[in-house]
C-alpha cells in the first residue's frame, strides 16, 4: 500500500534557527512529490514539485530536496511568518492519468520571535 509519512508531527523553532522537515514515502512508483503550505483555517497552498532523486527546488527560505525514499524541506533562518503546517503528497502511476495525490499528515511548524 502506498504510504506517506511526515516527521516530526510538530516543530518549534526560534527565529533564525534553521531546520528540516522530513517526508518519507513507500510507493509503487513516483510520478511526483509535492510540498504544500497550509495556514490555519485556509486551504493548502502549492510550494514545489520534485520529480526525480537529486532534484532540488528553492523559494525564499525554503529548499526542497528528493531522494529515492524521502524528501526534505529545509528552512533556512526562519521567520515567524513561516509558521504553518507543511504537507507532503505524492503522485503515483497507480493513480492513472488523474493527478491524484496521497497526502501525509503534515508537520506543524511554529517559529517564535
Amino acid at each position, binding site marked *: 500500500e502506498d504510504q506517506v509519512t511526515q516527521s516530526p508531527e510538530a516543530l518549534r523553532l526560534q527565529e533564525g534557527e534553521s531546520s528540516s522537515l522530513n517526508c518519507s514515502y513507500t510507493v509503487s512508483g513516483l510520478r511526483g512529490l*509535492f510540498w504544500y503550505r497550509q495556514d490555519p483555517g485556509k486551504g493548502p497552498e*502549492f510550494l514545489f514539485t520534485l*520529480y526525480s532523486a537529486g532534484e532540488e527546488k528553492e523559494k525564499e527560505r525554503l529548499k526542497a530536496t528528493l531522494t529515492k525514499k524521502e524528501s526534505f524541506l529545509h528552512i533556512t533562518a526562519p521567520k515567524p511568518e513561516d509558521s504553518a503546517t507543511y504537507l507532503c*503528497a505524492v503522485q503515483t502511476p497507480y493513480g492513472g492519468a*488523474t*493527478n491524484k495525490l496521497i*497526502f*501525509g499528515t503534515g508537520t506543524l511548524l511554529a517559529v517564535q520571535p
Partner: protein
Amino acid sequence: NAGVTQTPKFRVLKTGQSMTLLCAQDMNHEYMYWYRQDPGMGLRLIHYSVGEGTTAKGEVPDGYNVSRLKKQNFLLGLESAAPSQTSVYFCASSYAYRLERGAGNEQFFGPGTRLTVL
C-alpha cells in the same frame, strides 16, 4: 482570477439532513477533486472528476455523491448527514495529466468548508 472558491464557508447540520457543497474554479482546469481533512488523518480523497460529466470514487466515498455538470463546477452532496461526516472539506482542481516533467500536475485548493453534524 478568483482561483478555486467554495460555498458555504461554514455549516451546521442535524443528523439526517442533506446539503450540497459547491466548488467553482475559473482556471479552465480539466480535473477537480473533493477531500476531507480530519485531525491526525491528513487529506483524504472523497471523489474526483477528470472531465465534465464524469466522476469517480476516491478513498472515502461512502455517504457522499458528486456531480460535474459544468467544467467549472463540482458539487458534493450529503444525502443523510451523520456525525462522522463532521470535517473540513476542501475542493481542488488541476490541469489534465501531462507526461513531461515540470508540466504543472499540481492541484490548487479552495479555502474549505467547515461542516459540523450534530
